[in-house]
């Protein structure tokens, strides 16, 4: 089997996912990048510079897409060393209801479901579908993009609950995956990337927020590549290398 290291990065159209994919290419990985948003062409531009980049259509809410990606990886790579599960929905137009319980808004069930399936449940679906390939990989490393607002202990918000609650659910899902796969030698990274600047279709960064996606990706990839002294603790770490409580 090839000694080439193979990575799959979901939500790689822009922002952190794009920056991690680029960083992994610079580290010599062959990268399969999940693309969801057709209005972004940053990956296509990157592919011109890095032929080791393959772009795959991947809406992580769609089990058929996940199956197709697993089949493509089986066909073209035969293994998977590293999964970067990064795809997420963050915000929606402010007029949409269901972001606070106050007796007035009503519940937008479809939106609640979309957030859960994308931000939380896609993680076990992906690992489940990719497990035969991950077992053939040498790294056996699983990376999940979480968030500071997944931390119940640190929570200070009074609204905007969809994102935070689905990231807490993600953390629990990762714990359950860990319970099964850690005994097989898999290692885990749960990462809080910081409040990142939004990346526009032309690659520029919007104003506001504090963290450049490239800087956060640099730290994320450092944590991905470095072994830890204690891999038998599942921890949530941030873009400054600090451990956060759950």
């Amino acid at each position: 089997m090839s000694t080439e290291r193979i990575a799959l990065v979901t939500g790689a159209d822009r922002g952190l996912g794009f920056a991690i994919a680029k960083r992994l290419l610079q580290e010599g990985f062959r990268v399969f990048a999940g693309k969801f948003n057709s209005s972004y062409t940053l990956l296509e531009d990157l592919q011109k510079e890095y032929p080791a980049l393959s772009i795959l259509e991947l809406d992580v809410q769609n089990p058929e897409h996940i199956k197709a990606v697993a089949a493509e990886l089986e066909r073209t790579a035969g293994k998977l060393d590293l999964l970067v599960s990064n795809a997420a929905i963050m915000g929606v137009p402010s007029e949409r209801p269901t972001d606070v319980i106050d007796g007035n808004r009503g519940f937008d069930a479809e939106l609640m479901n979309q957030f859960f399936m994308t931000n939380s449940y896609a993680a076990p679906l992906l690992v489940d579908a990719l497990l035969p390939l991950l077992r053939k990989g040498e790294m056996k490393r699983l990376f999940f993009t979480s968030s500071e607002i997944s931390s119940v202990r640190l929570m200070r918000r009074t609204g905007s609950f969809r994102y935070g609650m689905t990231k807490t659910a993600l953390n629990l899902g990762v714990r359950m995956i860990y319970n099964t796969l850690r005994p097989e030698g898999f290692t885990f990274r749960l990462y809080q990337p910081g409040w990142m600047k939004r990346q526009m279709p032309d690659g520029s960064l919007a104003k506001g927020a504090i963290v450049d996606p490239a800087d956060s990706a640099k730290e994320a990839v450092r944590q991905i590549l470095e072994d830890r002294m204690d891999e038998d603790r599942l921890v949530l770490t941030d873009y400054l290398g600090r451990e956060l409580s759950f």
Partner: protein
Amino acid sequence: MNKVFFTSLQSDFAKALAEIFKENGFEITEETGVNIEYFIDTTDYTAPGDDKAIGEGISAEAGLQSYIKNVCEPLDLLDRCFYYMVGKKRICFLSSKASSISLSEETRGFGHNMAKAALHNILTITKNGLIERGFTFRLFDPLTGEYPPELAAKSAYVYFTRDRYFDNDADKTREDERNLLLRDAKGREIPW
């Protein structure tokens, strides 16, 4: 007579808890649109097929159904009950150690357990927003399957109805209500 709203009275735990409330002078209701002092969500639903471990074929549909039943439907009921909450305005939900990121040893039931973990977050956010308006919150693990439901119900009744104060606070301010905890039927705090 003060009323207690139950989202469901199907489980042995829910039935036993309702009986204890009745013995203590409360009226039980499953209807929205009436004044209630307690909102108690007793949902504990695992969808058919939501019992697979990683590598056994995780079901998207089963996971979503568990989430809808354990999170979306109870929160929708809570939203509809919101303006009818009076007195202690106490909001009580069930969860368990299985949904503790720190302690869970579970490998099956992704949808169910992840849904309950999501509740920990949203109830904290909701508590942050509503505590100043007099709402109070409880999260409880009845230790289903390992502790008699009648005893769990007795423990829940005390936990749900007793106010939490600073021990030495003569003024009995409700400051300690600001700390949302998950406690089990044996009184142990379960970390997030």
